[in-house]
């Protein structure tokens, strides 16, 4: 416990910790500052879908002026064409608070490209309405070679799937440098002259890194929530925000923080094995950079097991999918496991390197 406290003190008095916190806060202020110019306190359009179907576009279709390439799924229906010809009638630059907060459109569901499988959806008065609607959507299924596959859900809380990686990177930098600095300064040797039980030393460091990184990311997200609330009260609206929204928000922050803590353990493990901060950070971030490409090119089967896929699914309430070849030149994205199981995968990704690092550290000569 004394060692834990000493290490905790070190974590929170390190220059790196405050640099990272400071930079994060600056980025957040900047991003929220930009959001300020893009939000509005206007009420959302009354109970309506802010889409109209452009008649000119439909005419162009019927006259053959516009043609869609026939997709593998066959001919286009009139409905598809209508979707394609929809025009956004809301002000594209105005976003409302719950929107910027959770990244999902809580009043209306915008389809990604104006054309696709999604239908025009009703406007939602509250966050709960939106979530209920999402959850009530039927699950897509497909039978391939006699096996029925379930489609996978996109993250329900798209909020952090993008920026979430940013917090993970913070945790990796914090964890990697926390242990890496120790090897660089050679102080690990000193520490062992005060506490020679090596397993205890390394596990304490993991615990401190986990708790501190998680706490730090929670602090950062709390700060962001504060900034966005401020923004909403000055230039936005809380109209769609309800109890469910706050609960989801707190749970998302918790999940992101825990994941960040785990990533910090991962970085600390690599730093222990390589005895180098930069190597640890490069290894984790390098993996992030290449993993998608590798999966797409050589190991599609690996996708549902991959670290970042699971991390993003875990905190966004998504479902990692696996590729199932349909035999028609494209793959069906089938449900593989739920978001809680995804969390367990992240845990495994962390604990296995941590165990290796512990063994290596316990056995290695320190010179």
């Amino acid at each position, binding site marked *: 416990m004394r060692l834990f406290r000493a290490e905790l003190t070190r974590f929170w008095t390190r220059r790196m910790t405050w640099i990272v916190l400071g930079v994060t806060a600056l980025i957040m202020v900047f991003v929220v500052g930009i959001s300020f110019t893009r939000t509005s306190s206007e009420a959302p359009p009354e109970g309506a879908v802010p889409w109209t179907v452009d008649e000119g576009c439909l005419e162009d279709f019927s006259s053959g002026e516009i043609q869609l390439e026939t997709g593998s799924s066959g001919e286009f229906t009139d409905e598809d064409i209508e979707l394609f010809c929809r025009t956004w009638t809301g002000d594209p630059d105005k976003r409302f608070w719950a929107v910027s907060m959770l990244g999902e459109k809580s009043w209306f569901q915008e389809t990604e490209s104006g054309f696709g499988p999604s239908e025009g959806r009703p406007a939602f008065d509250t966050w709960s309405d939106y979530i209920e609607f999402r959850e009530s959507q039927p699950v897509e299924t497909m039978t391939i070679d006699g096996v029925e596959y379930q489609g996978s859900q996109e993250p329900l809380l798209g909020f952090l799937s993008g920026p979430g990686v940013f917090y993970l990177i913070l945790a990796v930098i914090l964890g990697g440098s926390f242990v890496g600095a120790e090897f660089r300064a050679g*102080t690990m040797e000193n520490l062992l002259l005060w506490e020679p039980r090596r397993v205890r030393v390394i596990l304490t460091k993991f615990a401190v890194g986990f708790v501190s990184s998680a706490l730090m990311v929670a602090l950062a997200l709390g700060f962001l929530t504060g900034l966005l609330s401020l923004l909403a009260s000055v230039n936005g609206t809380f109209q769609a925000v309800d109890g469910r929204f706050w609960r989801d928000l707190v749970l998302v922050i918790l999940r992101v923080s825990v994941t960040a803590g785990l990533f910090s353990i991962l970085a600390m493990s690599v730093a222990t094995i390589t005895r180098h901060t930069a190597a640890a950070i490069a290894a984790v971030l390098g993996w992030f950079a290449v993993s998608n490409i590798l999966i797409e090119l050589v190991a599609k089967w690996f996708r549902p097991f991959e670290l970042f896929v699971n991390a993003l699914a875990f905190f966004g309430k998504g479902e990692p999918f696996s590729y199932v070849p349909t035999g028609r030149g494209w793959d069906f994205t089938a449900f593989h496991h739920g978001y809680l199981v995804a969390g367990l995968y992240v845990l495994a990704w962390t604990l296995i390197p941590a165990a290796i690092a512990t063994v290596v550290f316990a056995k290695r000569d*320190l010179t």
Partner: protein
Amino acid sequence: MVWGVGVAVIEAVGLRKEFRNSVVAIDNLDFSIPSGGVYGFLGPNGSGKTTTIRCMLGLIKPSAGSVRLLGEDSSKSLRSVIHRVGALVETPKFFPTFGGRKNLRMFAQVAGLPNSEVDRVLEIVGLGERGGDSFGSYSLGMKQRLAIAATLLKDPEVIILDEPANGLDPAGIVEIRQLIRQLGESGKTIFVSSHQLGEVQQTCDHVMIISKGRLIQSGSVEELVALGQGDSQIITIDRPHEAADILNAQGYQATVIDAATVTVAVDGSKAQAINETLAANQLFLRGLRAQESSLESVFLELTEGEGSL
């Protein structure tokens, strides 16, 4: 080799360390260090001093044999005795952005010592006023002083110092010498590796010399100095060969060193007689000085040609 009687504070038995690059840093080392006093640990660069110290402290695992510190096997059960041991290994290692005081406070916290202890040891090494400055901004000697302060923090019974005088100014060297003597006299056991043989001769009671990882000599400082060839006189003269022949004919042991130098293995009481003998043969001295046997000359003789680099 056992010095004195009583329970050994540090004891190595058949200690051997072969690194992965198949460098044999220590080879079948046996020694036993009793409680109390200052023990010098000497050897040329690369002879395995630091490696031996790391084995003692459990930082590296011996390839064979074992070393016990206060009765506990260093590679297994140091925990129960580590609070009685202070050590400085090779170079001072602290967090560069933290102040000296803060670096020590972290260790004090781990050991459950009050912060006042930190201030006490900083005073001892003369860093009281600079304790707030970052370790990275310290001079070489200040870093060394901080490391020595760290070894004193636990008020240990056994203090292991790997070249403690490294980087210290003359006043610092004298301070450390006094500190080591004082600690040794107060009943603590000090094990100190060093290159500064004059220092060792002045501070240590016993000395152990290793070379290429093997123990080549150990004993009290007096015993070791007595092993030397004794005192000699160094003569500067124009015709050294003639001079040497004349002296050897008279029963002296004279050796020509170079075109103007001859050494004669006698003590200073014979200086006048030598001068007279040579003058009687029309050979006149240009200079004569005495060279006393010392730990340094003994060390150089013993480790001659043994440079392991």
